[in-house]
């Protein structure tokens, strides 16, 4: 009996290899594998999505600062003494703008500092000023308030991208300066500054002396209408602290500042590891607190051509170049691609030639794009002697590259038109050509257009073949025609990505954003076309 009981489970069914404990464990394991497998699949999709989010968020966060540019309003002296209305082209407008800037800081006297100060405004200032005066001669004759673009370092600092600056904090003790300018001594009423300096990377020396080198954060003390940068601190008798400092902006007087009257500003990023000095930061903050700096929509970026100066570089030249190139590509690839598709799908007999064409098209679709560039270089440039860097050649190369995409999409679309349409047309006496062009083609057109737009979107983002035919040249002018030297948006991105200036990183991201916007628009049009016009039979 015991045997019989043991061979029956709790529910009274016989235990077999499918229901014993080992089987249950097996089943559990199988279900676990199932769950694992499912989650692995979900994780793969999630990882792909994560990559996309990471990519796009990196680009967008970097691009946003480039959409605005900081301008400094200066009183520019355009009186007849400075600008001779008869000789507008010979005036050194840059110098006039720089004078206006240096006049704002009368106590900046050393040559080096003056150069630093002049460097705050863009080197393109003179060009803008000249252009605006030419457009509005009414500016001449007196002093006008004119907004000039800031240099890229100044601009990046104001956008908070170059240095980590804390907000001003009131110092809760008295501060007494020894002089108003030069290297001075500051006496602090208590020793709170010592702990603060230690916390910001000051170097310990003998007798408790702390030195703030360029590897430490910068501690700036603002009071009496000036700013002092601390270089060293040492504890003195009766609990006070004597600090050595360099005056960046002259103080009004040597009167001691009472508790709460002096302010401490900490620039966390050490001076050695940023590209902007303490002086420039103080000047910019002064200008900013005077309300002279204003952030505007960056029209320079959107409406000018390339430049070696980050703050003057724009994408308009590349956008026009891309546009011209795309026109050529479309003009060549669309008619040829659709014609080839019509022939192969509607007319071609099954023979060696058509098989060869089909094999060729499929192979071309998988040839690396750079090989098309080599073709363009060897055939179009060297054999036919066409101009380098021209949109017409770029367009031709991209057209050859896009052709297989358009042919394959068009054939699929033509194939989707049911035979009954053709038979009906033939039945009422239309010729083969009339059948195709009056009936089949119009019905297949939405699909063909969709395929073409997707092919063009692909071509718009293509870079490698165009490097081969010289579209990588540095071109400042906006191209005016199909044979002018030009560059295109992806190549511009490639070139800017290579430039070492920090400002170009944002510009590159912004250019990428523009490219992606164009691609999104094209894809959206393709989707709309597909949704609205594509018929299902």
């Amino acid at each position, binding site marked *: 009996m015991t045997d019989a009981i043991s061979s029956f489970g709790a529910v009274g069914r016989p235990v077999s290899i499918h229901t014993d404990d080992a089987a249950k464990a097996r089943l559990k394991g199988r279900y676990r594998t199932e769950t694992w497998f499912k989650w692995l699949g979900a994780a793969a999709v999630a990882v792909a999505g994560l990559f996309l989010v990471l990519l796009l968020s*990196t680009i967008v966060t970097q691009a946003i600062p480039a959409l605005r540019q900081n301008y400094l309003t200066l009183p520019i002296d355009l009186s007849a003494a400075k600008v001779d209305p008869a000789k507008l082209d010979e005036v050194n407008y840059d110098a006039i703008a720089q004078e206006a800037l240096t006049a704002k800081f009368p106590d900046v006297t050393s040559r080096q500092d003056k150069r630093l100060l002049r460097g705050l405004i863009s080197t393109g200032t003179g060009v803008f000023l000249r252009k605006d005066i030419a457009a509005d001669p009414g500016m001449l004759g007196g002093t006008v308030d004119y907004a000039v673009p800031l240099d890229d370092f100044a601009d990046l600092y104001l956008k908070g991208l170059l240095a980590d600056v804390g907000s001003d904090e009131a110092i809760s003790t008295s501060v007494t300066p020894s002089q108003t300018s030069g290297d001075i001594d500051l006496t602090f009423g208590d020793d709170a500054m010592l702990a603060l300096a230690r916390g910001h990377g000051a170097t310990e020396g003998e007798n408790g002396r702390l030195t703030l080198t360029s590897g430490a954060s910068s501690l700036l003390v603002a009071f009496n209408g000036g700013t002092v940068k601390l270089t060293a601190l040492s504890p003195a008798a009766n609990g006070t602290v004597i600090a050595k400092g360099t005056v960046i902006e002259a103080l009004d007087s040597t009167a001691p500042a009472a508790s709460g009257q002096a302010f401490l500003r900490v620039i966390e990023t050490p001076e050695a590891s940023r590209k902007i000095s303490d002086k420039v930061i103080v000047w910019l903050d002064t200008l900013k607190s005077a309300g002279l700096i204003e952030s505007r929509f960056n029209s320079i970026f959107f409406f000018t051509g390339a430049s070696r100066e980050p703050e003057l570089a724009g994408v308009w030249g590349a956008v026009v170049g891309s546009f011209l190139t795309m026109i050529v590509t479309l003009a060549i690839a669309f008619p040829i691609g659709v014609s080839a598709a019509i022939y192969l799908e509607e007319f071609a007999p099954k023979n060696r030639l058509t098989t060869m064409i089909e094999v060729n098209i499929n192979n071309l679709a998988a040839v690396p794009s750079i*090989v098309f560039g080599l073709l363009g270089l060897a055939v179009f440039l060297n054999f036919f002697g066409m101009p380098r860097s021209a949109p017409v050649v770029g367009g031709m190369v991209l057209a050859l590259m896009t052709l297989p995409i358009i042919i394959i999409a068009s054939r699929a679309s033509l194939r989707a038109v049911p035979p009954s349409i053709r038979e009906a047309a033939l039945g009422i006496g239309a010729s083969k050509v009339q059948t195709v062009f009056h009936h089949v083609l119009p019905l297949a057109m939405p699909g063909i257009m969709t395929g073409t737009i997707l092919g063009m979107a692909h071509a718009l983002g293509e870079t490698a073949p165009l490097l081969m035919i010289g579209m990588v040249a540095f071109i400042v002018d906006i191209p005016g025609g199909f044979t002018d030297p030009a560059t295109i948006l992806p190549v511009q991105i490639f070139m800017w*990505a290579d430039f070492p200036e920090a400002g170009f990183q944002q510009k590159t991201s912004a250019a990428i954003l523009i490219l992606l916007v164009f691609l999104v628009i094209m894809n959206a049009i393709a989707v709309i076309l597909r949704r609205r016009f594509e018929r299902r039979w």
Partner: protein
Amino acid sequence: MVGYLVVLLLVLAAAAYWIGRTRAIASVNGDVARLHSLPGQHGMFLALFAAGPALLAIVVWSLVTPGIESSIIADRFSSELSGMGVPQVEAFIRDARAMAFGGLVGFADPTKEAAAALYKSVHATSTWIIWTVALVLSASGFYWAYSRIAPAYRARHVVERILRAFLIACSVVAILTTVGIVLSLIFESLRFFQQVPFYKFLFGTHWSPQSAFTGAGAEAGAVNEDIFGMVPLFAGTLLITFIAMLVAAPIGLMAAIYLSDYASKSVRAVAKPVLEILAGIPTVVYGFFAALTVAPYFRGIGESLGLNVASESALAAGVVMGIMIIPFVSSLSDDVINAVPQSLRDGSAGLGATKSETIRKVVLPAALPGIVSAMLLAVSRAIGETMIVVMAAGLAANLTANPLEAVTTVTVQIVTLLVGDQEFDSAKTLAAFALGLVLFCITLTLNIVALRVVQKYREQYD
């Protein structure tokens, strides 16, 4: 000026269409039923003959003249240009052209001005010739076709035959492109192999073409044959491709499996566009991402682990390339997995297999040829990819299997050799074409093998 000619011809064509139509109708006194072809077909016939030959002549002219004009200039100024290398001559002719047509020139000198003047006159002559030729062709074509129009004339047949010829010509462009690629690569490569023996190119392990010559420019000395060994480039390409496939193959395949067999409709509605967007992002964007975000990130991780990661490591380029290829792998695998008939899945489920068992033991084996083919195509894609490696991989040709070091690839070297000033007869630039030929052969072989795998091992259901 030739632009006006094209516009003029198009206007003429429109006029000819209208004239042909009117004449056809007039020839039967308005009783259109008596015409063999429709009036519109007569119009088309006249328009084609009035504008077609002339437009064809213009196409040929615009392809041929730039070369002829440059060679005339080079020929006429051969004494002034005799001491210069090829790039200087090219620059001279480019400047002359720019001066002649009002472009910007670096600096001008009397020789260039003379060349520009000559260029202008030569161009004026050739423009005049094409105008004459085009108008004569147009007029004679129109006259000939006009005299044909009659009620019994089979205009439709002529028009349709021309149209069909045009369609065939368009299809042949694909063949011409392939022929052009193959010929240009082979010719330039042969010139390269005259200077560097091909076995040294294929099997050499040292690559540094920047030091190819002892001298510079026209005085360059003999080519050093031993610095054109492409093995390090090939190894670097394979290393990066391998890393890319390590990322793309599992993620792409699992994503395809999940989307085809597990995902609910709403998940698919989100995930598919995500993959499509990933596929639509230009490679230059991936390159920027690799160089500016991923490479420093890997470097940072390496530093914190005490590893020395190159700032242009193969790892960063490979991983980003893998991300780029994920949608490619997943969409190809998706097609293949969906092509496995539902009856196989149902049968497996009927035997009590779980979904994952069905996929691993039934669906994947059935889809294996297609998946292998998809992976081969992905490898081909990775080998030919250019921008990511140009921006994120190194330039130095290290022969190493360490993914943390910088390696260079075939495509990077093609770009490096051909961007910037070129001399067209130097081994350096010709080497790029030899590399291009190797690249073309490898990708072509992979594509053909991928195709054969599917054809040969595909299970035939239905």
